[in-house]
């Protein structure tokens, strides 16, 4: 891999240069507590010390609402809607977000590749950024705390700048075209990089891996936790909307005012909504709130073959943004037996 260093004094120049490759989006602070991705007009707005964003990066590849076709009811013709997607740069993604996008790749670019997604993926440049975990993070248990691929450039924090990993041809091109921005990596930088990684590793609440969790989950179907926790759930779907890998969508035909034409749109859906498993005739494959609650735990912990990880990347968003204070990680730990004593008391 190719490594370079970006000194602190050149960070703003680097961001300015990035915006030459496409519209720049990055996390900014939007309120006292919250951060979210925004289009960057002033590079001073870019937040480097954020932990999580209100909406995940998936929204740049799967818009919350997407017109797929326009239709004409009289002729029964459909015309594909292809937005003019211009190049864009997504700056500041943490490792979990990048793995999240790779999971979406595995789904949206499977043997039936999705054009709407693919176009946005091709247009996007991904610049990763190292992070330190808070009490909600468990990407280490998911083995998604460090990424090997899926970014064009990745910035690792150093005391006086950033160590950059170049992860793609697009990344090489950016580096080659801006030689004045970067310096060589020194032995001191490598030492600092290692120190940062060690410190980061020690900050995680739990150590180990969750690889055996999916079996324990399957064997723990009758745990009282499912009743108690699902009772708390409001069914709002916040957990799925803020999840970097939840990707369910619904499709609806919305008529125009003339009653003849209209558009077929898809928009984010959630397995926490009652209609998600409902089929014609009234049978619902996930009838109760408990069914839907368990479904998310099952889906997130299932094995995703193309990546060899689970569908969950351990970002902690679902817990952080849950209005009912349902703690996903804590529940998983109970299932795994780590916090079992709570139930045994």
């Amino acid at each position, binding site marked *: 891999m190719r490594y370079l260093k970006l000194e602190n004094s050149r960070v703003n120049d680097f961001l300015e240069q990035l915006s030459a490759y496409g519209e720049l989006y990055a996390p900014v602070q939007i309120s006292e507590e919250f951060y979210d991705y925004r289009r960057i007009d002033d590079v001073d707005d870019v937040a480097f010390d954020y932990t999580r964003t209100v909406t995940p990066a998936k929204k740049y590849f799967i818009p919350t609402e997407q017109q797929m076709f326009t239709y004409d009811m009289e002729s029964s*013709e459909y015309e594909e809607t292809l937005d003019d997607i211009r190049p864009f740069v997504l700056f500041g993604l943490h490792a979990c977000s990048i793995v999240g996008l790779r999971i979406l790749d595995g789904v949206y*670019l499977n043997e039936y590749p999705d*054009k709407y997604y693919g176009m946005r993926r091709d247009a996007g440049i991904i610049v990763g950024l190292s992070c330190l975990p808070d009490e909600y993070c468990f990407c280490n248990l998911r083995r998604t705390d460090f990424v090997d691929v899926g970014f064009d450039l990745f910035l690792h924090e150093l005391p006086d700048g950033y160590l950059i990993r170049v992860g793609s041809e697009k990344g090489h091109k950016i580096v080659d075209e801006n030689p004045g921005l970067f310096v060589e990596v020194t032995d001191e930088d490598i030492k600092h990089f290692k120190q940062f990684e060690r410190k980061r590793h020690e900050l995680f609440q739990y150590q180990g891996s969750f690889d055996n969790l999916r079996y324990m989950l399957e064997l723990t179907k009758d745990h009282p936790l499912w009743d108690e926790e699902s009772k708390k759930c409001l069914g709002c779907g916040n957990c799925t909307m803020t999840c970097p890998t*939840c990707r369910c*969508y619904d499709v609806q035909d919305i008529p125009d005012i003339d009653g003849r034409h209209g558009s077929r749109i898809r928009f984010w859906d959630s397995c926490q909504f009652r209609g998600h498993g409902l089929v014609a*005739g009234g049978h619902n*494959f996930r009838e109760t709130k408990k069914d839907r609650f368990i479904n998310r735990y099952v*889906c997130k912990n*299932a094995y995703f073959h193309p990546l060899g990880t689970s569908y969950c990347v351990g970002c902690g968003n679902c817990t952080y943004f849950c209005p009912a204070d349902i703690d996903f990680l804590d529940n998983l730990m109970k299932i795994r037996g780590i916090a079992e004593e709570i139930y045994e008391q």
Partner: protein
Amino acid sequence: MSNETTPDKNIYDLYKCRILRVYEMTDEDKLFLLRFEDSDIAEEWTFTPGQFVQVSIPGVGEIPISVCSSPMRRGFFELCIKRAGKVTEVIHRMEPGDYMGIRGPYGNGFPMDRFENHDLLLIAAGIGMVPLRSVFLHAMDNRWKFGNITVINSARYGHKLLFRKELEAMRDIAEAENINILQTVTRDPEWPGRTGRAQHHVEDANTDPDDAYVVVCGPPQAYRSVFEKVIEAGYDPRNIYVTLERRMKCGVGKCGHCIAGSSTFLEYICIDGPVFGYYDIISTPNLI
């Protein structure tokens, strides 16, 4: 991953199909004979029994429907559609000359190659006869490739038996071709023929339990008792297949509505199914 991934083809594009005929099957089921408008598509398009298509009506929506005709019949195909929801309500008002948008076929379908040179026991309950008709007609069109065949078609009432007349009309050829057609009803006092659930007629099948594949389709709650009877009769559990139904918006493993199973075996019914083997079913909670 992020370099040049955009495909040219839009997988959600619809083929325009014209309705050629509409047959009333029961008071709530209609059979639609369809032809592709584009002659190249008509020429190329084929499917495997057990696969489904996404049927689209502009302004109304899109739904998954199993193909129920024989894949040997090119250029045409048939869909048997129950009036059960918003889209099927509109489809039931359609007439010859009207158009449907079709994409697919999707799903794994039945392993027809594996069935070849073996007996075939088809067990259908209610609308379950729809995908099984495709298996049956395929086997009829390739009669020399299969052993004895039994079709058990069941419904609550005689007038609800799907393809009842078609199956009755095949009686003569069935006899000549070692095919056993058993039609049974569960709640109809007027029905002159067999009564009771489909699985209670398994012992009258002409198929050899040691050398038969069993295909079951019906409401999910029926599966376990059918399995029990079939295995009791000596059929090998490894040779039992079922096909499942779910809500689907995409048909191509994305929209997530059909995800089922458990954390060790999470499947998109649309691409990993809808056909599953007996052992997948019994080792995976929530599939049925």
